[in-house]
C-alpha cells in the first residue's frame, strides 16, 4: 500500500477517509486514478519483464533462456515462449496502457479539467477499478493452468479452441478479458456521462480541453467495441465448453468469423490506446510552447474522424486470410484514409511549436519524441495498409516494429510525458529535471536500437512469434537485444529515482509550468486537494485559468 504514503499529506487539506477503506471503498476520482496508475505500474513490471525475457531469448539463435525459465515454470520451453508472448501483449494492452491513460490520467484529470467535483457515477468508478485486479489474477493464472494460454493475444481459433488448447488456460484468459471488458464498459459510460453533463458553465464542447475530447471519443469507442469482443469471447467460451461450433468448420462454423469479430473490436482498440495520448501531447506541446493549440477544432474533429473511421478498417489485419480481392481493395482505401487526420494532428503539433517560446522540460522532450516516433510508426502503417505489399510483411517482424513504434514508442512515450507533466499535480513533489532528461534520452536511444532493426528483419523475412530463428537473422537480433538492455537499464533508473522523489522530493507549487498551462487543474493546489471544484468555476466570461497577462 505504498499509495497511502503518497497521499498521506492530502489528509490535512481535507477530510479524506483513513486506512485501507479509503482505497477499497473509494469513490474519489483522484484516489481511483492513483490506484489505476499503481495497477498499471505493477502490470508494466510483469509485462515489461516478459518482453525482456523474449529479447534475451532472441539475442542469439538457439533456445537458451526459455529452457531454464520454462523448467522453472513447470512448462516446456517452446510452449512457455508462446505463453510469454501472449501474456506480454495482453498485459500491455489491457493492463498497462488502458489503465494508465484512461483509468489513471483520465480519472485524475478529466473532472478537474472540466471543473467538476468528481465523476458522474463515483461508485461505478470504484467497481470499474476493482474489476481489474481479479482480471489480472485470472490472466496470470491463465499462464499457469494446464500448459498455459499460448495462442497469441489475438486468440485465433482453432488454436484457442479445444483442438489447440484442450486445458483450462484459454478459459481463464477469456474470463480475464471479460472482466477487463466489463470494467472498460462501466468506465466508458462514466466518462461519457461526466463529460457530456458536468462541464463547468460556459464550457461548451468547443471550449473543452483536447484531453477531454480525446477521453470522450475513447470512451465512445470502448462502449461500441468492447461488447463485440465480449460476444466473440462468449462464443469461444461456448465452443470450448458447451459444444457449439461457431468457429469450428467441422460443425459448420468458420475460424475466420472470429478474426472479423476480434478485429472489429481490435482495431478501435488500438485507437483507444492512442487517442488519449494525442490529447496529452496536445496539452504538453501547447504548455511548453506558451501558445494555444494550433487549429483546436481541427484537432478535435481529427480525433473524432479517426475514431469513426477506426471502426471500418478492421480487416486490414486479415489481408492473408483469403478474403476476396474487392474486399481487400476497400480496406486499403479506408485504411490509407486514416493517414489524413493523423497527418493533420502531426502538422498541427508542429504548428503549435512554430512561433512559440519553447522550453524543453522533461514532458516536452517526451512529447517531441512521441511526435517523431509516431510519425515513423505512421509511415510504416501506410506501407502495411497496401494489401499487396502486406503479403510480404504480414506476420513478420516488420509488423512487430510498426506496432511497437506506434504503441511502445507512441502510447508509452505519451504515458511518460503525462507522468512528468502531472507528477507535481498528483504528488505535490518536484521531479528532478536532470533525471527526467536522462530517462528520456536513454529510453529514446534504447527503444530505437531495439525496434528499428526489426524493420530489417521483417523485410528479410523473419516471421514473428518465433522462439528460434535461422542463423542468418542473428546480427540484427543481437542489436535489438542490446536495445532491450539499454531500455531496461533506463527503466530501472526511472523506478529508483521516482521512488526517491516520492518519498523525499521538494514541494511543488500549484502551477510549475508557467503561463502556457491554461487548463483548470493548474488553478488548484499541488498535490490536488482531496476535493476540488466544489464551487463550480465559471467559463461564461472566458477561461478562468488563462493568465490575464496573456
Amino acid at each position, binding site marked *: 500500500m505504498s499509495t497511502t504514503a503518497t497521499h498521506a499529506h492530502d489528509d490535512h487539506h481535507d477530510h479524506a477517509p483513513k486506512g485501507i477503506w479509503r482505497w477499497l471503498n473509494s469513490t474519489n476520482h483522484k484516489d481511483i486514478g492513483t490506484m489505476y496508475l499503481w495497477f498499471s505500474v505493477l502490470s508494466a513490471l510483469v509485462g515489461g519483464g516478459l518482453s525482456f525475457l523474449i529479447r534475451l531469448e532472441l539475442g542469439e539463435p538457439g533456445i537458451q533462456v526459455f529452457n531454464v525459465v520454462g523448467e522453472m515454470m513447470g512448462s516446456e520451453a517452446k510452449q512457455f515462449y508462446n505463453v510469454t508472448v501472449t501474456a506480454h501483449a495482453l498485459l500491455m494492452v489491457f493492463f498497462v496502457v488502458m489503465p494508465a491513460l484512461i483509468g489513471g490520467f483520465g480519472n485524475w484529470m478529466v473532472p478537474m479539467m472540466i471543473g467538476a467535483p468528481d465523476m458522474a457515477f463515483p461508485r461505478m468508478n470504484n467497481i470499474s477499478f476493482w474489476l481489474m485486479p481479479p482480471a489480472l489474477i485470472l490472466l496470470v493464472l491463465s499462464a499457469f493452468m494446464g500448459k498455459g494460454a499460448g495462442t497469441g493475444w489475438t486468440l485465433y481459433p482453432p488454436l484457442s479452441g479445444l483442438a489447440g488448447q484442450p486445458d483450462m488456460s484459454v478459459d481463464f484468459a477469456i474470463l480475464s478479458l471479460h472482466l477487463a471488458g466489463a470494467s472498460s464498459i462501466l468506465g466508458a459510460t462514466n466518462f461519457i456521462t461526466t463529460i457530456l453533463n458536468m462541464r463547468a458553465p460556459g464550457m461548451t464542447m468547443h471550449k473543452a480541453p483536447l484531453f477531454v475530447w480525446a477521453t470522450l471519443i475513447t470512451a465512445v469507442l470502448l462502449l461500441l467495441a468492447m461488447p463485440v469482443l465480449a460476444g466473440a469471447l462468449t462464443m469461444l467460451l461456448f465452443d470450448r465448453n458447451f459444444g457449439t461450433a461457431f468457429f469450428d468448420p467441422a460443425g459448420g462454423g468458420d475460424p475466420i468469423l472470429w478474426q472479423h469479430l476480434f478485429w472489429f473490436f481490435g482495431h478501435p482498440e488500438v485507437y483507444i490506446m492512442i487517442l488519449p495520448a494525442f490529447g496529452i501531447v496536445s496539452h504538453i506541446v501547447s504548455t511548453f510552447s506558451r501558445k*494555444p493549440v494550433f487549429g483546436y477544432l481541427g484537432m478535435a474533429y481529427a480525433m473524432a474522424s479517426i475514431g469513426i473511421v477506426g471502426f471500418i478498417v478492421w480487416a486490414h489485419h486479415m489481408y492473408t486470410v483469403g478474403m476476396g480481392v474487392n474486399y481487400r481493395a476497400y480496406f486499403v482505401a479506408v485504411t490509407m484514409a486514416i493517414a489524413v487526420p493523423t497527418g*493533420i494532428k502531426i502538422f498541427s503539433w508542429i504548428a503549435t511549436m512554430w512561433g512559440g517560446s519553447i522550453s524543453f522540460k522533461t514532458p516536452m522532450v517526451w512529447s517531441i519524441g512521441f511526435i517523431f516516433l509516431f510519425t515513423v510508426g505512421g509511415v510504416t502503417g501506410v506501407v502495411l495498409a497496401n494489401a*499487396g505489399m502486406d503479403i510480404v510483411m504480414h506476420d513478420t517482424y516488420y509488423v512487430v516494429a510498426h506496432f511497437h513504434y506506434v504503441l511502445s514508442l507512441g502510447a508509452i512515450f505519451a504515458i511518460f510525458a503525462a507522468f512528468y507533466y502531472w507528477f507535481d499535480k498528483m504528488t505535490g513533489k518536484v521531479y528532478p529535471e536532470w533525471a527526467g532528461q536522462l530517462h528520456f534520452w536513454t529510453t529514446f536511444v534504447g527503444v530505437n536500437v531495439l525496434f528499428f532493426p526489426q524493420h530489417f528483419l521483417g523485410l528479410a523475412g523473419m516471421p514473428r512469434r518465433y522462439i528460434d530463428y535461422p542463423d542468418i537473422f542473428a546480427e540484427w537480433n543481437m542489436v535489438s537485444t542490446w536495445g532491450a538492455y539499454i531500455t531496461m537499464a533506463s527503466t530501472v533508473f526511472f523506478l529508483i529515482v521516482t521512488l526517491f522523489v516520492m518519498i523525499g522530493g521538494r514541494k511543488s507549487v500549484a502551477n510549475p509550468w508557467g503561463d502556457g498551462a491554461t487548463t483548470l487543474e493548474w488553478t488548484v493546489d499541488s498535490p490536488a486537494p482531496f476535493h476540488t471544484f466544489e464551487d463550480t468555476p465559471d467559463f461564461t466570461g472566458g477561461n478562468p485559468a488563462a493568465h490575464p497577462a496573456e
Partner: protein
Amino acid sequence: MTRISAFCAGWVLTIVSASSAWAQELPTPSFPVPWQLNMQTPASPVAEQLVEFHNFLLVICTVISLVVLALLLWCAIRYNEKANPVPSKNAHNTLLEIAWTAIPVIILVVIAVPSYRLLFYMDRIEDPELTVKVVGSQWYWTYEFPDHDISFDSLPLQDNEINVEAGQHRLLEVDTPLILPTDTDIRILFTATDVLHAWTIPAFGVKLDSVPGRTNETWTRITIPGKYYGQCSELCGINHSFMPIVVHAVSPEEFEAWRASEMAANHNTPDDANRFAALIQE
C-alpha cells in the same frame, strides 16, 4: 515385351535424372545475407513488382519522416525560449490547414494507383498450367498435385540432421522439398487439417493462410531456378517456429521428369496401378 522394357528403361532414367535434380546442390538465389536491410531477391514477376513498389514507398516514408524531423529541429533551434522569448498567439491558418490535408491525400492517391494495380495482378490467374495444393498440419506441410495423383509430406529436419558443409541451414531444411517448374503459371491452393498455418516463400511474393474448412488460392510464376525457403507465418502452437517450407525450382523438363517418376512410383493410387497393370498385360 519391348514395351515393358522401354517403360522400365524410361522409368529408371527419369528416377535417376529426377533424383539428381533435387539431390544436387541448388543455388539459393534469394537467401538473405547477414545485416540484410531490405527484401529478398525476387524470383517471380509479383515479387519483382513488390520490391519495386516497396522501394518507391520507402522513398516516400523516408522523405516524410525527415521532413517532420527537420521541422521539429527547426522549431527547437528557432523557437526555443532563448531565441524567441515572446511567443506568437497565432493558432489558425486556413490555407495551411487545407494544404496539409490536401497534400497527404495527393500522396496517398499516388501510392494507391500502383498499389491497386499490383493487388489485382497478384490475386489469381485464369488459366494455370499447373496446380499444387498445400496442406498445413501441426507441424509439417503436405503437398499434392491433384491433377497428377502426387501427394507427399514435407517434414522438417532436426538440428542434428543438418549438413552445414552441404550448404544446409538450421531450422530451414525439410526431408522432401516441393518441386516446382520455372517459367510456368502455377496455381497454389491452401488448406489446413487442424489449426491455422500460413505458407510463404518471400522470394515469390506469396503468403496465404491455410485455414481448416477453407481453400484459399493464389498463384506464382518462378523466374529463377534454385532452392527457396519460407517459414510458417501464422502462430500454430508449440512448434510454430519449426515447420519450414522448401521449394526446389527446376526447369520444366526436369520437373516433367520428376513428375513422371513420382507418378510411376505411386503404385498405391488406383489410377496408376491400373495403367501399370494394363501395360504388363500387353
